[in-house]
């Protein structure tokens, strides 16, 4: 068995193939199979064998049906008959056919898109062959009772783990640099995501090196690995190996020692440039506190990672604890007694993208909840389309009733009829899948833009996907076709011939149920979308306690070196610039944590710290509650601190102004609280307001320079003005800037992209549902044509007729509303719980959504009902 091609494929070939060709075709296919078996293994060989057999399935190889079956063979004639009946039926009812296939195609395409996206998210980091054994070491600290979970950890942890624990087979670490100025000759480009890693990186992670030795590429100082596309970007068609790039300064030169294949979209570690971490002594110090490096270990497969993480606590006591004692002046027992602790956790790399709870991730992760939401929506869309199919098929059954009756009379079995109708729906499903595949291929760029993230897969990436799509088409065809097939085939010839159309009412309840379900699902999605939008709007427009409009933020002030003040002074001359100041960080960006203590006792307080200049208060429009801000008149302000209300309250002074604090970072010097500002949000609204301390550092040239531009000025010319001055003061380094408000929005990227996706799919769901309704109403109005004609002759007004025809449908929509509103409330309430600051319940959202859907439904059905009501009764009654 193990070295044989799949039996069913061979049998399929033997079944269809002309006997005179069978020998050579099977021979060639088998020869290729055995060869591939040796080369690529059984699975690939079998898949390719199946593919070959399918490709041989073409006209010139297929048995002439005449040679196998005599021309008047009943099964063949019947199959032919089924096929033509199906086609004729579809072509005869073009609108019905279009609604059916169109709806199904949209449903399948949406489902496929979502499946591709979900597959991409779930496949993160699974392409490393050994991914089950690779873990990232994370820091799990509790500081004064507050949990601080961090993706990064101390630099020496990697080598310590490798040396002390035999179950750690390999360990590697890297750090991510902020923007760096990379140069080749005169070309200087600032690059954002440069990583620096140690020499084990390419042994732990199986990124494929096209050139260079994975063991030694990062072993020497000032070595650099480029991605293929960056090798092209900097060196064109030249061989980059051994060539040099400058990093940040013309005197710092890195040599290219390897080319890595471009990192796939489903890797949480993405880089185009990777330098060797031993290039900079500061990255290799034996410093345990405040680690900013990412540490990964490959474990022996038999290791229990949780157990190991527990054992790693010893690393803390042996290495980090002495340093904590040194900085805090406390015994470690005392420090722990004050509610502090540091421990480690090991997270499998395949979990990082979707399940990380750690801050300081390399890229914003996905969210498993959103994956569930998307999956549910994908299924809902598919089922709305399938329900359409079932509804239309059963509603339409009366047109096929006579056909069924005659087939039965002639001797068709019920099973034969079921096969016939299922085959018909599989045919429709095939056509729909085909259209859907086209849509997916054509619309993929838009979808990628919509979700704001690259996708590693598409339909053309493998034959397997096509086979899956085929199987999917058959599956959908069966799902959609089986109920109508049973319903249709149950007709009794005598009743149909006598003119009873009893079965109409039998499937009526199912139709009502399905329509109700469709609209319930659509309504929930729509209400959910509106709530999500309102929450995002709330977060973005809410008064966060600081200004971020008209603010241009410049990066890399260190490039100004000693010219920082001169640069700022020159900018101030312009009337288009209102204020300018620099600071270590800005809201929305990471804040450092600093510890403070009251002079009177040993309790430690951790505040989020910013180092700023005198202009900070005015620049951000912070509101002073008491005391004052830093000012040039007070020479002692370098030993002063401004707190926000949360921080001030935590310290518990009655009047905090003038109270002394000590801080380990200020080497125990006394610092005085000089002011308290109103609370403002430095993080996303998922979090509660954090305690903030602001200190003065006028000469600090890390971080950012914020430039507030006058409201009436031309932003473009102001920026080029700034750029010009920047160039003169930095020896023509490129300027990097962003707009504060746009950058701040990015912390809500995952919410905004979810909202955008939901809008599209909510729109599609209601569209497909209405499409089905349109088909149904078209059918019922034509079935009730005579009734309408008679009613009209007897004096019914047009309004009455429209009401009679719409009331059934509207009753179903009403039921959908009653079911969906509580469901939507529960779902949105659950989602909103994840925000510390959230919108309240608003009945108007529900009212407006329901009205919008009701209106859409009315528009969808009114054309048909009004047309029927306006028709001349003579036309509908004349035939009899």
């Amino acid at each position: 068995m193990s070295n044989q091609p799949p039996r069913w494929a061979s049998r399929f070939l033997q079944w269809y193939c002309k006997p005179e060709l069978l020998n050579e075709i099977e021979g060639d296919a088998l020869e290729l199979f055995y060869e591939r078996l040796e080369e690529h293994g059984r699975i690939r060989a079998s898949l390719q064998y199946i593919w070959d057999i399918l490709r041989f399935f073409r006209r010139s190889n297929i048995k002439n049906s005449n040679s196998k079956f005599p021309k008047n063979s009943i099964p063949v004639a019947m199959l032919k008959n089924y096929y033509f009946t199906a086609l004729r039926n579809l072509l005869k009812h073009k609108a019905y056919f279009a609604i059916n296939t169109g709806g199904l195609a949209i449903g399948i395409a949406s489902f496929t898109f979502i499946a591709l996206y979900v597959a991409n998210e779930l496949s993160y980091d699974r392409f490393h062959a050994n991914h089950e054994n690779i873990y990232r070491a994370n820091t799990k600290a509790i500081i004064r009772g507050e949990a601080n979970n961090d993706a990064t950890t101390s630099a020496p942890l990697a080598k310590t783990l490798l040396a002390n624990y035999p179950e750690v087979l390999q360990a590697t670490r890297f750090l991510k640099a902020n923007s760096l100025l990379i140069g080749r000759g005169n070309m200087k480009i600032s690059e954002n995501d440069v990583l620096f890693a140690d020499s084990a990186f390419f042994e732990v992670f199986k990124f494929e090196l096209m050139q260079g030795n994975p063991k030694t590429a990062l072993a020497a100082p000032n070595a650099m690995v480029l991605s293929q596309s960056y090798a092209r970007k900097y060196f064109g068609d030249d061989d980059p190996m051994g060539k040099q790039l400058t990093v940040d300064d013309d005197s710092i030169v890195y040599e290219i020692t390897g080319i890595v294949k471009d990192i796939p979209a489903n890797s949480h570690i993405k880089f185009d440039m990777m330098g060797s971490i031993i290039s900079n002594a500061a990255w290799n110090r034996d410093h345990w506190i405040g680690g900013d490096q990412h540490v990964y270990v490959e474990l022996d497969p038999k290791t229990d990672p949780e157990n190991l993480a527990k054992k790693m606590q010893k690393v803390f006591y042996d290495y980090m604890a002495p340093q904590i004692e040194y900085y805090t002046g406390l015994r470690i027992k005392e420090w722990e007694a004050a509610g502090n602790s540091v421990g480690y956790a090991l997270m499998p790399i395949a979990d990082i993208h979707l399940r990380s709870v750690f801050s300081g991730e390399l890229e914003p992760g996905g969210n498993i909840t959103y994956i569930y939401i998307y999956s549910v929506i994908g299924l809902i869309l598919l089922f709305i389309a399938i329900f359409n199919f079932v509804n239309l098929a059963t509603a339409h059954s009366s047109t096929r009733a006579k056909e069924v009756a005659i087939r039965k009379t002639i001797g068709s079995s019920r099973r034969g009829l079921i096969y016939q109708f299922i085959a018909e729906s599989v045919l429709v499903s095939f056509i729909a899948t085909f259209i859907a595949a086209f849509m997916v291929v054509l619309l993929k760029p838009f979808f990628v833009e919509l979700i704001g993230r690259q996708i590693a897969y598409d339909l053309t990436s493998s034959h397997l996907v096509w086979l899956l799509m085929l199987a999917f088409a058959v599956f959908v065809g069966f799902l959609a076709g089986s109920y109508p097939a049973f319903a249709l085939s149950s007709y009794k010839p005598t009743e149909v011939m006598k003119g009873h159309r009893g079965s109409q009412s039998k499937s009526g309840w199912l139709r009502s149920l399905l329509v109700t379900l469709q609209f319930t699902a659509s309504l929930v999605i729509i209400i959910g979308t509106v709530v999500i939008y309102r929450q995002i709007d709330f977060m973005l427009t809410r008064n966060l306690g600081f200004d971020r409009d008209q603010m241009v933020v410049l990066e890399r002030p260190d490039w100004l070196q000693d010219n920082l003040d001169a640069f700022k002074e020159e900018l101030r001359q312009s009337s288009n610039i209102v204020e300018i100041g620099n600071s270590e960080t800005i809201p929305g960006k990471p804040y450092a944590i600093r510890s403070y203590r009251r002079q009177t006792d040993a309790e430690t307080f951790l505040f989020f710290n910013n180092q700023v200049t005198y202009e900070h208060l005015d620049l951000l429009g912070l509101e002073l509650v008491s005391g004052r801000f830093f000012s040039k008149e007070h020479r002692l302000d370098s030993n002063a601190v401004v707190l926000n209300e949360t921080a001030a309250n935590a310290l518990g002074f009655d009047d905090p102004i003038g109270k002394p604090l000590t801080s380990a970072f200020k080497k125990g010097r006394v610092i005085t609280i000089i002011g308290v500002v109103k609370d403002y949000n430095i993080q996303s609204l998922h979090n509660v307001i954090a305690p903030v301390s602001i200190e003065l550092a006028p000469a600090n040239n890390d971080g950012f320079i914020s430039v507030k531009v006058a409201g009436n000025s031309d932003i473009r010319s102001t920026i080029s003005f700034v750029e010009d001055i920047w160039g003169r003061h930095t020896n023509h380094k490129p300027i990097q800037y962003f707009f504060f408000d746009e950058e701040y929005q990015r912390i809500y990227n995952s919410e905004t992209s979810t909202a955008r996706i939901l809008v599209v799919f909510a729109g599609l769901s209601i569209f497909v549902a209405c499409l089905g309704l349109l088909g149904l109403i078209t059918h019922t109005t034509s079935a009730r044509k005579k009734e309408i004609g008679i009613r009209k002759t007897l004096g019914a007004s047009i309004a009455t007729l429209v009401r009679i025809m719409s009331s059934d449908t509207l009753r179903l929509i009403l039921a959908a509303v009653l079911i969906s509103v509580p469901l939507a409330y529960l779902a949105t309430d659950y989602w909103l719980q994840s925000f510390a600051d959230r919108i309240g319940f608003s009945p108007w959202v529900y009212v407006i959504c329901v009205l919008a859907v009701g209106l859409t439904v009315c528009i969808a059905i009114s054309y048909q009902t009004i047309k029927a009501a306006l028709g001349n009764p003579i036309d509908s009654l004349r035939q009899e």
Partner: protein
Amino acid sequence: MKSKGSHLGEFEELILLAVASLLDDAYGVSVMKYIASETKRNANISAIHEGLKRLERKGLLKSRVGGATQMRGGRSKRFFELTETGKSTLEEVMNLKLQLYRKVPNFNLNWSK
């Protein structure tokens, strides 16, 4: 022979050349591999069969059956070789191409400029 039946498609031409080069050993798999290794074109085996059959129908190839091996599960191969018409057609086509190619101005074709 200017009828449509004798027109040689680009892929057919490749197959014809492959069969001519492979001499006694021209059958489906060997032709496929030859084309793959010489031109880097990965055609499916069924496409090769189709081409071979079409060329045989056009009278440019003839075939015989033989060469069953264990590697093929005991199935025989169909070997192809060029007919006289095949040989002359191939020659004609190639000459025509060469003739046209030579007429390209500046024959040393310094494309890189």
